């Protein structure tokens, strides 16, 4: 395990608070921060033929949007604070993908913002944070 903090972001207010928290922790602990944005996607969804034909383009633009809108600004803030940082954008199921990334970059902990999801929806589908806490290979810090 390395001195790496995996920060999960999605551009929400909660993820901004998580960024601040991760920044403070990383600064005091001298850790590196990996900023990860997971675009929700499933290989088992049903699409029209036209959507399939254009999928490659759509994927590229989704990645560009995630990078320019959320990941790059976060990396800039971290660099400003003098913290070593790296960004990852990937498609997949959020909790599962975050666990995989945590293992790949040998993170010591995962930091994620609470989203405050609607109770019924979370009850049926489970929240990303809830699933992550259950499945993560390393400790998870949930920032309120």
């Amino acid at each position: 395990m390395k001195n790496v903090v995996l920060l999960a972001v999605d551009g929400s207010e909660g993820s901004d608070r998580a960024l601040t928290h991760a920044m403070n922790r990383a600064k005091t602990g001298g850790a590196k921060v990996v900023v990860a944005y997971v675009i929700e996607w499933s290989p088992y969804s049903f699409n029209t033929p036209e959507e399939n034909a254009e999928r490659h383009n759509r994927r590229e633009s989704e990645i560009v949007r995630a990078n320019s809108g959320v990941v790059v600004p976060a990396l800039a803030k971290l660099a400003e604070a003098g913290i070593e940082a790296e960004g990852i954008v990937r498609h997949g199921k959020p909790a599962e993908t975050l666990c995989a990334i945590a293992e790949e970059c040998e993170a010591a902990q995962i930091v994620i913002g609470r989203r405050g999801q609607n109770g019924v929806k979370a009850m049926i589908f489970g929240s990303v944070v809830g699933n992550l806490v259950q499945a993560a290979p390393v400790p998870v810090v949930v920032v309120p």
Partner: protein
Amino acid sequence: MARFVTFLLTALLLSGPAFAGIDETINSITAPIANVIGDIVFFKINIAGAGLPLVVLWLVIGAVFFTVYMGFVNLRGFGHAIRLVRGDYADPNSAGEVSHFQALATAVSGTVGIGNIGGVAVAVTVGGAGATFWLIVAGFLGMSTKFVECTLGVKYRNENPDGSVSGGPMYYLRKGFEERGMTGFGKFMGTFYAIGIFVGALGIGNMFQSNQAYVQLNTVAGGGLDGYGWLVGLILAVVVFAVIVGGIKSIARVTEKIVPFMAVFYCFFAIIVILMNFTSIPMAISNIFTGAFTGEGVAGGALGALIIGFQRAVFSNEAGIGSASIAHAAVKTDEPVTEGYVSLLEPFIDTIVICTITALVIGTSQVADPNFAGDATGVAMTSAAFERQISWFPLPLAFGALLFAFSTMISWSYYGLKGWTYLFGENQSLQTIYKIIFCAFVALGCVVQLDPILSISDALVFLICVPNILGLYFLAPIVKAEMNKYQAKLASGEIKKFKN
């Protein structure tokens, strides 16, 4: 304003039956043409009293050849196909691209349609229970044809400058023959195919579907929609317009999501009906086998049953026609042959699973009560078989048929579009013209008397299997080389599993 609208609506409603005049005019113009084209394409040779259309023979010989030549890939590749669809070999770095599952699901929703519900009933009425056996055999052989055409569809697809992909028989025919130094012939075959798929898309992929949807709705409404075909057609056309021209993806996405559930729902209730008829199961199954080899009471005997079974299977799973390879070509893979493996599952799901289940529903009902459906055939016969045990089922069945028809129209609008763009280029405004023509035919499908127009489009769709299968024979060695190369990579561990 409101009064004006009311007036307009009343006028339209009253003028409904007046459309019959247009209907007859179209009919009288097209019928002679249809007869000539149909006679040529479905030219029959007489064997022992059964008429065997040459085009069906052409498809079956092709399917048998590919099954043997590819070393029974339909059996041996089945397990690997399932593992590919499950994503065992999916590279996490290409997450977000079109997966094998998605390409398969899209292709399946284009093939699963009215044919699975109504076509089987026609087969059983004309060809007896034995036709079911040959339907399954044809589905099994068709898996190999699909394997070949879908591998080629991916291998020779075009990657457009804007990053989107276009693939299908017109591309592999042109490029494949070009590679063999037959540039002119390849161009001719590609163009011929593109025209055929375009016209076919307006017929069996469009008018036939919208017409059957209307017939279904009318049956459920107890004939209350008689004379209002134009209104149903107009509504359907507007919805299709909203999806393919207006780009209202949500409608398409909803149907694409509901269709698989409807298929599962249909199979689930079909199995329940079969189980409710359970005392008739042994007899129904034995009828299928004895009918297959004796052909009792069928014109042309066992051969007659065989012909009907094969013909219905081809109508349903489209193996050899090449249409599905257009949908399969969108997948993200480094090895074209992987999509070939996945496409094996398409005739399996469509013909061997869904058609067989329908055949058993009808077969067990027939054993229990030979006169259950009266004179009805097609969807109405299947519906009656369900109704015998589950009285409320015709309503969801009609709804399901409507959705199947709709998703088939959406898929075929894309197949036709690819034929169109092959001919006229990727120009956006030309594409819009095509889409508007397509919508007009949706509306027309509910109004005009279908027979002549359908036989033209049927004939053209079957005609394109001539260049397609001819091309497959020429290009089969390439597919075999790809398959062997891929198998070697699998054995050496160069291609590894990402999941267990």
